[in-house]
């Protein structure tokens, strides 16, 4: 037990375990990875993720058994710098980026990661959504600067073919600022992007029309940008999708997105249906409410945990299953337990469902990798 650090069963929360292990310096052993499956062991995308972790760290030790059902990971130091990675196309770049966002502020040198692969698929957050929701959230914690950027360089790459390229650059921070994010404020505008790749440009317009028909009941200030890709910078597969972000007066953003089913996988979708469903997904996100949307809850909680030794408070919507797993892992790796208070809105307030106020005292994490100047 002691020599292996923390031991887990199965490959759920795979990224959380490796990321928290790297940040806390605790070794981790994951066994029984799909051991009863017809095709046992790690998948290609997980192997690709491990290779990415190896690239951003220095001195990591990774041992995988022959069948790939047991993984032992001893984290090294986060070195950062320029990293290039071809992400496996089974998962989109968002899968890899979510982990990089958590690690990037604690590197030795500012990270400049070039990731190639699928930029948009229905499963993971797309690059555009992370850019509009995760980056502003990190700015609240003091991770900011000129070089803090996430952009699609070579056009979009839809699933399953991929062929997109994304550049993520992030400055390093010595410490993380504790925050008090308890008032989300009212939503003042809705912005969005409707993209169509290797299909008729009319698709994007149909998406915008249908989404507006739902959202215009609440706000007049809605602007959805249409983005049509063709030719060389449109990746290898066709598809379309919609990203919607609601911005509040206090500078918080809640995002929702939907993407067409990849070519050759399941039922095709009408752009009208997709647009309306995506708008309803955004309303659902508004109903849940809080200062952070459901897909970024774990990022906010991690930055709270790693903050200076002071009280941090963040108001969230209902905790997602992924977040609950993340909270358990934070307890395992950092011995931090959050205080959770349910806030029920009163009867005549029309502000959606129950909210949760998360409170914790940071562990006072300092970036030991960062060189002093």
């Amino acid at each position: 037990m002691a020599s292996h650090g923390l031991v887990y069963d199965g490959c759920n929360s795979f990224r959380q375990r490796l990321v928290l292990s790297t940040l806390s310096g605790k070794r981790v052993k994951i066994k029984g990875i799909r051991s009863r499956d017809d095709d046992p062991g790690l998948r290609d995308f997980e192997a690709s993720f491990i290779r990415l972790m190896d690239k951003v760290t220095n001195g990591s030790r990774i041992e995988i058994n022959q069948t790939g059902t047991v993984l032992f990971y001893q984290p090294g130091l986060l070195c950062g710098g320029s990293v290039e990675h071809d992400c496996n196309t089974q998962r989109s770049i968002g899968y890899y980026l979510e982990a990089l966002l958590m690690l990037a502020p604690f590197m030795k040198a500012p990270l400049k990661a070039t990731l190639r692969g699928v930029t948009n698929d229905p499963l993971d957050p797309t690059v555009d959504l992370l850019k509009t929701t995760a980056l502003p959230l990190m700015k609240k914690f003091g991770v900011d600067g000129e070089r803090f950027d996430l952009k699609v360089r070579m056009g979009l790459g839809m699933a399953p073919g991929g062929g997109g390229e994304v550049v993520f650059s992030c400055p390093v921070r010595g410490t993380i600022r504790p925050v008090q994010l308890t008032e989300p404020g009212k939503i003042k505008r809705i912005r969005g992007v409707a993209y169509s790749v290797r299909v008729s440009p009319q698709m994007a317009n149909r998406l915008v029309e249908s989404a507006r028909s739902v959202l215009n009941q609440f706000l007049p200030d809605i602007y959805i940008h249409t983005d049509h890709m063709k030719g060389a910078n449109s990746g290898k597969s066709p598809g379309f999708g919609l990203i919607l972000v609601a911005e509040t007066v206090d500078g918080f953003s809640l995002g929702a997105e939907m993407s067409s089913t990849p070519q050759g996988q399941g039922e095709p979708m009408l752009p009208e249906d997709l647009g309306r469903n995506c708008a309803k997904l955004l309303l659902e996100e508004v109903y849940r409410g809080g200062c952070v949307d459901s897909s970024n809850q774990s990022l906010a909680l991690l930055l709270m945990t790693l903050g200076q030794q002071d009280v941090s408070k963040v108001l969230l919507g209902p905790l997602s299953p992924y977040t609950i797993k993340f909270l358990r892992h934070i307890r395992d790796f950092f011995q931090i337990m959050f205080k959770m208070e349910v806030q029920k809105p009163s009867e005549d307030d029309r502000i959606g469902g129950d909210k949760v106020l998360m409170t914790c005292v940071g562990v006072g994490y300092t970036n030991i990798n960062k060189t002093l100047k």
Partner: protein
Amino acid sequence: ARDSENCSEEHEEDSDGEEEEEDNVADVATTKFILQCPFTGALKWKEDLQQKATEAFLRQQEAVPNLRKLVYGSDDSENEDEELGGLFRVSRLQTSNKFEANALDCSHFKPDISHCWDSEEMLNSIRDCFVTGKWDDNQ
């Protein structure tokens, strides 16, 4: 059956006062004994039933949103070396855990399908989240 008869008689007699016939006095004494005897306790639990139920209900209501317990669980459940009868060991603790062990690693929170965003009632429930909604006085 005789006991319940006695009970009803006793209530009448209490309201009527102490001037009773001699032969009834013995019966009254036995019922009083049953009611007050600390050893039988046969009817003691019936006292304040409604109040107890209300208290239990309120206690449970408070316990429902105990998120801390939901998220972190109780420490008793982590007792893994439990032996049955000093001989057998529980080899598979929870089948549901096994099922979840290799679940998909994805941060999306699937929406609750019970919310119908076509209904006016649902739309009204979030009106004040927008700047077009009602504002507090201090905002």
